[in-house]
């Protein structure tokens, strides 16, 4: 009874939909989070009659008859649209406006990428993420530095000591990817290069299509709560109708076997 398995694939698909919605909603206020959207594909078809075939009476069928075997998960892509810009006023909170990711060195020594620009200064004076991973290229902020300014092109400067004119401390770089939705999520607001994303291409913010850096802002999650809730209701209904098919198949089978 193919319908039973077909309906089961439908229920499984909706379960995956609900799983991604749950994760999106859980991260509705995670800075730099990019929502995930599953995409589904229909499975192969059994062709019972090809379009244009002739039936036993010699009449050509204007349409064919094909029976499909259900659905499978095609991909769970990330939607890399810009999240809202939230004012924090903190001088080390940075948001990227446009294409590009900050580069981070993970404790394991690998390079990771993030849109979450909530940076801090560690005990050595280096610019680090919330979790203490180094920002690349390394920017060292002297202990006596004040009035740190980050320009749109990523130039970081500060007043050092009693100086009245700012000293340039370094320049931030951004990385971009041929296929950003193909980045691998590492958790902790970090992404890693994958075979699907292509290698990172580095550049100066606000140049050659790279986004600019905004100081005093954080990029919030791009999850749209209303949209997710609507999708959740749709997924729930779709799950129910698929389970109704299982019930119908079962009843019909029972009826046939009770003959």
């Amino acid at each position, binding site marked *: 009874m193919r319908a039973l398995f*077909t309906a089961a694939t439908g229920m499984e698909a909706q379960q995956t939909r609900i799983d991604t919605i749950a994760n999106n909603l859980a991260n509705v206020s995670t800075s730099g989070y990019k929502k995930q959207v599953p995409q589904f594909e229909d499975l192969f078809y059994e062709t019972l009659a090809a379009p244009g075939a002739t039936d036993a*009476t010699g009449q050509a069928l204007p349409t064919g008859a*094909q029976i499909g075997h259900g659905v499978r998960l095609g991909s769970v*892509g990330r939607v890399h649209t810009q999240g809202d810009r939230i004012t924090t006023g903190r001088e080390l909170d940075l948001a990227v406006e446009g294409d590009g990711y900050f580069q981070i060195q993970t404790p394991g020594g690998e390079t990771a990428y993030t849109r979450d620009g909530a940076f801090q200064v560690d005990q050595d004076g280096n610019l680090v993420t919330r979790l203490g991973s180094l920002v690349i290229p390394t920017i060292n902020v002297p202990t006596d530095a004040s009035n740190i300014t980050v320009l749109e092109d990523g130039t970081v400067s500060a007043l050092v000591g009693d100086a009245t004119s700012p000293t340039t401390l370094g320049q931030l770089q951004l990385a971009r990817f041929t296929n*950003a939705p*193909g980045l691998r999520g590492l958790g902790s607001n970090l992404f890693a290069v994958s075979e699907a994303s292509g290698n990172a291409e580095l550049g100066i913010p606000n140049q050659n299509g790279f986004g600019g850096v905004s100081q005093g802002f954080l990029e919030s999650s791009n999850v749209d709560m209303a949209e997710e809730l609507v999708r959740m209701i749709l997924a729930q209904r779709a799950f129910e109708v698929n389970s109704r098919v299982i019930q119908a198949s079962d009843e019909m089978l029972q009826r046939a076997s009770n003959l």
Partner: protein
Amino acid sequence: MTTTSLYVSSAGADARLKQLEMVANNLANADTDGFRADAASFGRALTANLESADAERSLGLHVFVNTQGPGVRHVSGPVTRTGGDLDVAIDGPGFFSVQTPAGVRYTRAGGFQVDPAGQLISTAGHPVLGDGGPINVGPGAARIDADGQIVSATGGVLGRVAVDLFEDPSQLSKAGENLFEAPPLARRQPAGVRNLVPGSVETSNVKPMQELAHLVVLQRAFDASMEALQADDAASNRLIQEMNR
């Protein structure tokens, strides 16, 4: 009472099982971008069988195929905004074409991506075809506009997706992976007249409530076929007993 009625009832029951499989596939794909529902109504084919003078021969037909009604329902599904730069929906008729190992296939699922080599691909990973074959998008952000042009972040045009039209979409057959296979009848839409919705995808055109209604009706019809089978069986049973007396 003849054996014909037994065959007719069982063919009816079999038709409902096929219809059930179609409904199941439609509902399983209620959330599949670009999916188009299959439709079949069997009433007519069954009536023809019952009325046929040569019923046993005509029972050899695929009774479930309705020669009057539609096969695949080629009406557009709802266009949903996604915000994806490379997501695009076709407003009106036509299909995107993709290059698969088995040849050119057609799809309404416009959630496109870029592969690591920089080529525009469908969700299933097949290169999307433009006016001059596969489209190289290269590195960096790009978006598709309402005319199908792929525009880079710096404003350069990198290519344009093609839309293929069919005089009669019912000639298409389904190939899985949201793809349709076509006889070589496609007519490519001339450049500049494309009507695309950027940042959106066309979702499945399955109407769950309608499918549920079909489900209830086909279940009742199946029950009726089963009743008829039982009645036939009881009648032949009685006949045999009478003859043995």
